């Protein structure tokens, strides 16, 4: 039973790469070039179904762009040049991994800044609390007597020794 489940899982995992939408007629004969093309198209957003890469998407425009990227590579473009070619037409939005620049600083560094801010805030709070008196001022004899009268006990010596835990 376990073996069968394991086999099924293995087959599902093995089928994962096959989810790419790429059609056989798009694949370049040169495996090295094809690998580069796959690497690029995985980084480019399909603008029709915006949370998929053009490598994953079945949209006709994604197919056009996959072919376009392969043509650029065949024409001798470097990976960066092929990506820049698409970005020049569709803007930074086609990059699934947004570039780091002034307009994306909040996006890239915002979470870390918030975390850091929280840590600083917490540190300041803890430090302030340590500086404050740990316990209220001890009762003076007058107050002690009043308290004892209220709870009906004979006055105890101030600050009784703490009960010790059994060793």
């Amino acid at each position, binding site marked *: 039973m376990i073996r069968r489940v394991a086999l099924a899982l293995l087959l599902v995992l093995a089928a994962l790469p096959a989810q790419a939408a790429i059609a056989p007629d798009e694949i370049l004969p040169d495996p090295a070039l094809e690998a580069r093309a796959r690497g690029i198209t995985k980084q480019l957003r399909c603008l029709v179904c*915006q949370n998929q890469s053009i490598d994953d998407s079945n949209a*006709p*425009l994604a197919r056009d762009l996959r072919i*376009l990227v392969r043509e650029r590579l065949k024409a001798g473009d470097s990976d960066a040049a092929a990506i820049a070619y698409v970005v020049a*037409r*569709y*803007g930074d939005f086609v990059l699934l991994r947004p570039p780091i620049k002034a307009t994306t600083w909040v996006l890239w560094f915002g979470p870390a800044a918030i975390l850091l801010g929280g840590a600083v805030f917490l540190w300041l709070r803890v430090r302030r609390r340590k500086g404050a008196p740990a316990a209220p001022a001890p009762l003076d004899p007058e107050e002690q007597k009043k308290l004892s009268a209220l709870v009906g006990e004979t006055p105890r010596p101030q600050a009784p020794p703490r009960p010790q835990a059994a060793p």
Partner: protein
Amino acid sequence: MRLRFVIPAILFVLLGAGFVYALVAIQSGRKDPGTVPSALLGKPAPEFALPAPEGFAQGLSTADLKGKVTVLNVFASWCPPCRVEHPLLLELAKEEGFQVVGLNWKDKDDKLAAWLKEDGNPFARIGADRSGRVGIDWGVYGAPETYILDRDARIVHRHVGPLTKEILRDEIRPLLAKLRK
């Protein structure tokens, strides 16, 4: 001491107001988070030269966009919203001072001809972009899209999705009036 409760309360209210604003804007259609800003705004129109679809006289190239204010509509006969905005383009084409041209995107010539014969042709020129390659150069990712270009064929404005009366009134016509001067 009181401030410790007031500041988070103010922050919370501001956050909530931001959410409500965004929700209302999306719901009313004023804002579409899926809209991609054009990379070509302020840039000259890409170089291209397209033949006219079969049955039409005038093709479309970059040279045709110069010297006149232009409304360039990316459309196709297979695209239902294009048919919805079609009457507005016919209306726009009657006005003076700018040209309305069409980029026929990934379409079949015969289907296009049949449609425009029936519903009227608002376009002074039509470029047949059968492969969609010129569309890619323009950054087109769906039909319809509408571009406004100044006399130097510089892209001034892009509208994604069908035109509406409101968009014509509030965005397109004021911009055209400004460019015509």
